[in-house]
């Protein structure tokens, strides 16, 4: 944990991208947490005068259903984040298992798994998700939607994890441990996991991004449970009420602005993390050895 905090501090200090990312993500999370102290229930409506532009009383204005956009969006953002995190975790479980099994088993098992894996990488996912959601949308909870989306969101990362495993398998220290009789499971956990974790972390954030974007897409098409407030369903309802044509632009602008902020921040975090974890800068930082003097 101390190490983790030091990394965060390092990143915050040295990389402006990460500084922006941390700040923006903290703001979005704080915003989502405010839903717990919201004076309004997201299900209730017409408690405020409808179609009010942003003001002191209603910082993000009110929509045509008489809901305060600020408080409503705290729930929407929270649900979208929760959904994204669940999806990312679920698809991580699939990606890590497949990547590790394919990487360590090797041979024919690896070949078969990778052929199937590549098919999933290439498949256009949206038409399939449209089909699934078309049939079962009415009953879908956030968890179910997360399961469906996670089922299609692992292939790319499984490949990355596998290639990382393959390169680790060839390293000196693996041979040393194998020859000195260390158990495979403890090699995996103590020697390899620290190397795989950074990749897992950055693919998790990427996946989170992808999942939240996918939810917006499906919701906009009317293919998610439109009774649950999320960033996507908020935009869906705004479109249904023709918010732009009737001049209620804040109904749309608020969720769009928050999601753009969130997306850019998460992405910059991935980029910053990638630079921090790059083996070359990592080596320089850890040892300060002659960077250009090889062998």
């Amino acid at each position, binding site marked *: 944990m101390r190490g983790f905090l030091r990394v965060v501090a*390092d990143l915050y200090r*040295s990389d402006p991208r990460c500084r922006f990312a941390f700040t923006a993500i903290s703001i979005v999370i704080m915003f989502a947490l405010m839903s717990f102290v919201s004076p309004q229930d997201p299900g209730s409506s017409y408690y405020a005068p409808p179609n009010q532009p942003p003001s002191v009383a209603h910082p993000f204005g009110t929509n045509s259903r008489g809901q305060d956009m600020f408080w409503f969006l705290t729930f929407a953002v929270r649900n979208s984040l929760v959904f994204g995190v669940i999806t990312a975790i679920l698809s991580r479980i699939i990606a890590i298992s497949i990547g590790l099994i394919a990487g360590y088993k090797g041979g024919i098992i690896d070949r078969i798994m990778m052929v199937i894996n590549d098919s999933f990488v290439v498949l256009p996912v949206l038409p399939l998700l449209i089909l699934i959601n078309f049939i079962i949308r009415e009953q879908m909870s956030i968890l179910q939607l997360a399961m469906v989306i996670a089922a299609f969101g692992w292939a790319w990362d499984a490949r990355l994890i596998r290639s990382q495993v393959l390169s680790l398998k060839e390293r000196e220290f693996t041979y040393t441990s194998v020859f000195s009789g260390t158990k495979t499971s403890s090699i995996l956990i103590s020697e390899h996991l620290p190397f795989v974790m950074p990749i897992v972390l950055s693919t998790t954030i990427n996946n989170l991004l992808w999942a939240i974007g996918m939810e917006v897409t499906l919701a906009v098409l009317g293919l998610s449970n439109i009774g649950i407030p999320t960033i996507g369903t908020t935009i869906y309802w705004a479109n249904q009420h023709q918010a732009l044509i009737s001049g209620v632009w804040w109904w749309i602008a608020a969720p769009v602005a928050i999601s753009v902020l969130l997306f850019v921040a998460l992405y910059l975090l991935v980029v910053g993390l990638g630079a921090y974890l790059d083996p070359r800068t990592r080596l*320089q930082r850890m040892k*300060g050895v*002659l*960077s*250009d*003097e*090889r*062998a």
Partner: protein
Amino acid sequence: MSVLRIQNLQAYYQSTLYGVTRNVKAVDGVSLDLRANEIYGIAGESSCGKTSLIKVVFGAIKPPLTIIGGRVLYQINDRDFDITQTNDETLRQMRWKQVSYILQGSMSLLNPVRRVRKTFWDFTKAHEPVIEPEKFEATTREHLNRLGLPAEVLDSYPHQLSGGMKQRVAIALATIFQPKVILADEPTTALDVVVQRGVLQLLRRIQQETKNTLVIVTHDMGIHANIADRVGIMYAGRIVEEGTVKHIFSEPRHPYTKHLIQSLPKIGDKSKRQSIPGAPPNLADPPAGCRFHPRCPYAKPICSVQTPELSPIQDERRVACFLLTKENAHVS
């Protein structure tokens, strides 16, 4: 006749990363005199600054590598060029025509998506912009022929060549204009022993034909014994001993050189090899005085205080050690 004089050269890697500035003293006060028609070997363990020295000598000084002091003087057409002071264009013109550099990594010196002929074309054209394709073809084939390489390599892509052939092609590329000085960094490291021999013979042949100066940098003492005329031993960014190959191998004087020579396997000798206790120093924070003193079995109090100069002790022989300099001669 000297061709290249290095005078008290200091070159550090200066970097600031995540808020920490550091100076890695890769080359710290090196003076060398290289002559025409000789093979000069620079020996030393990895990370002792050999490659950095060669880079500076070639004028490849890019941040974080920074010149702190000293000069690198080339004598070209009776004029001196300080390579640390020349502008980019002069440098560009000098390179390959006067001095070329075969960098380490023989397996990856050739562009994987370009035919070897195209690479020769690029390298030639860089210095003879108006050469005609026919003339290029003829001179390139002649050059390869002289080095004993088949002309077919021109039609190949690098992945179609063996490791040894790739290195020969890289050497051929470095010698198209028969430069006065050739710097070769670990030219045989990635190759197996039989192929190594061939590559070394090729290098020697080129040197003998063109009577130029060949500088070979390698940690492998066997190669120096095999090919070099004179050898400089480098330790932690400094030259600690210099002499003819015969002297260095038959009667090494500096304690570090002694150890390097003693640790070489000899036919018939079954005694156990001893390794030097301790590890080479971190060049970001080298020990004061003689940099070898923490590992030196003969270290005196003065060694950790004062830096020994590289001073001549006999003809063709210079050593940086207080045990050997005149005023302290009685101690040894």
